[in-house]
C-alpha cells in the first residue's frame, strides 16, 4: 500500500486554517491530483495532510447581484449540473465537462484546479477570460486576488503558506461572450495539449470590446495573450480579423516540447483554434 501520512479532517474552516498555520500540512480537497502526487514516487511525500472535504463553508454556488460565487469545494459535476452556472458561466460548464470523466468530475474541485496550479488546468483559462476573483483566507483574514495575478510561475501561486482558496467570484455580464476549447488526445481522460478561452463584449459596429484571450498548456502557467488581445480590440469577427489573430497568437506564444505534444503542434493548433472561434463568432 502507498505511504499513508497522518491526516486531520476538521469540520470547520477556522480549525482548518489554524492547523494550516501551525503545522503546514498539505491540503487535500477532492484528491484527484493530490492522491497521485503524495505516493512518494514524485518526490518526498508530505509529512502531514489537511483534509478539507468536510468544510461546508467552502461549498455552494450562489448568485449575488452581478456576481456568481462558487465555493472552493464545488465539484466539476456540481458545476455541470448547476442551472446558475449554465446560465451565467456556460464556458466554465463546458470546461468542467472536458475534465477526466465521471469519476474525476465527481471528486475534483474548482478550488483544487486553482491551487494545483497546473499550466494545463482546464478551468483556469476560463477564470482568466471571465476576470475571476479568487478569494483566499487565513487566520489573518480574507483577501481577493484577481485570476490574472494568481499563477506566478510554474506551479506557483500567490497563496501564502497559511492560506487556502475559499471561493471564486465570477462577474456575470449578459453582454460578454466567453468561448472555450480544449484540444487533447481524446475527449475524456486527457490532459490538454492546448486549452483556450476567448471573451469579448459585443460592441455592434464598434467591434469587439474588452477582449480577453487566455491559454493553458502553452507556457509555464495559464496566461493572457495581451498582444493578440490588443490586436482584436475594436475588430469585427471577419475572416481578415481571424487571419491576423491567428498569425498574432502564433508569434506571441512560446510553448515547449513535452510528453504530451510539441511546441510546433501547440503553436499551429492554438492559431487554428483561435481562427475557428473567431469564425464561429462571425458566423461565416
Amino acid at each position, binding site marked *: 500500500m502507498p505511504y499513508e501520512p497522518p491526516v486531520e479532517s476538521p469540520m470547520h474552516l477556522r480549525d482548518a486554517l489554524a492547523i494550516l498555520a501551525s503545522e503546514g500540512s498539505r491540503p487535500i480537497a477532492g484528491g484527484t491530483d493530490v492522491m497521485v502526487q503524495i505516493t512518494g514516487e514524485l518526490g518526498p511525500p508530505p509529512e502531514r*495532510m489537511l483534509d478539507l472535504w468536510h468544510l461546508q463553508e467552502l461549498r455552494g454556488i450562489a448568485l449575488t447581484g452581478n456576481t456568481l460565487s462558487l465555493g472552493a469545494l464545488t465539484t466539476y459535476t456540481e458545476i455541470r449540473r448547476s442551472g446558475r452556472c449554465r446560465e451565467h458561466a456556460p464556458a466554465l460548464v463546458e470546461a468542467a465537462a472536458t475534465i477526466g470523466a465521471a469519476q474525476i468530475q465527481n471528486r475534483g474541485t474548482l478550488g483544487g484546479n486553482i491551487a494545483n496550479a497546473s499550466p494545463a488546468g482546464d478551468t483556469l483559462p476560463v477564470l482568466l477570460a471571465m476576470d475571476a476573483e479568487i478569494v483566499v483566507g487565513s487566520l489573518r483574514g480574507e483577501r481577493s486576488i484577481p485570476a490574472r495575478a494568481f499563477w506566478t510561475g510554474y506551479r506557483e501561486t500567490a497563496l501564502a503558506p497559511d492560506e487556502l482558496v475559499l471561493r471564486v467570484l465570477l462577474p456575470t455580464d449578459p453582454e460578454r461572450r466567453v468561448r472555450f476549447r480544449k484540444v487533447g488526445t481524446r475527449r475524456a481522460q486527457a490532459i490538454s495539449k492546448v486549452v483556450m478561452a476567448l471573451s469579448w463584449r459585443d460592441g455592434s459596429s464598434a467591434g469587439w470590446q474588452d477582449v480577453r484571450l487566455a491559454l493553458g498548456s502553452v507556457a509555464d502557467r495559464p496566461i493572457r495573450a495581451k498582444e493578440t488581445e490588443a490586436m482584436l480590440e475594436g475588430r469585427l469577427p471577419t475572416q481578415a480579423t481571424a487571419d491576423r489573430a491567428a498569425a498574432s497568437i502564433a508569434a506571441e506564444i512560446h510553448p515547449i516540447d513535452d510528453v504530451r505534444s510539441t511546441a510546433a503542434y501547440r503553436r499551429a493548433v492554438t492559431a487554428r483554434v483561435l481562427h475557428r472561434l473567431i469564425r464561429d463568432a462571425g458566423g461565416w
Partner: protein
Amino acid sequence: MSYRLLVNGDPVEIDVPGMRRLLDVLREDLGLTGTKEGCGEGECGACSVLLDGDVVDSCLVPICQADGHVIRTVEGLAPASGSGLPSETAASPQLDPLQAAFLETGGAQCGICTPGMLMAGQAFLASGADPTDEAIREAIAGNLCRCTGYTKIIEAIALAAARPSFDGVG
C-alpha cells in the same frame, strides 16, 4: 482513527490510517477483492465504486473522506448475494440486470475492467439519463478496457436500460 461506512448495505467500522485509499480498505481490510487496482492514478477506472451513488475512483479517495458515507462495490450489485463481506454466507448467485446483460452480450473478455465498467454503468442507469450510444460512451469514458471490448459493453448497458426489470435504484 476509527471510520464508519455503509458497505453494500452493511455498517462497517474500521480503525485504519485516514489517508488509506478506499481501494485498499475494500480489498485489504474488508476482503472485497472484486474492486480492482489498475493504474492507481485515476486514469483507468478499474477501481470504480459508488460513493453515495456517484461513481468514483476508489484509488483517489482517502478513507477519511468516505467516513459516514455509503459505498457500493461490485459485490453489492447482485441482490441475493448479500454484502460480499467474508462473514456472510454465500447465497445463490442471482445476477443484477446489468450483470446479466454483460453476460448476454459478451461484455466481458479478460475481466479486469468489468467490475469498474459495471459500477460506472450502474451509476449511469441510476441517473435515469436517456441511454443513447453517445451518453453511454460518456458514462464509461473513465473506464479503460484493454481488450478493446467497448462495443459489447455499450450494448450491455443499453440492453439493461431497455429492460423493464431494471428498477433504476442506484
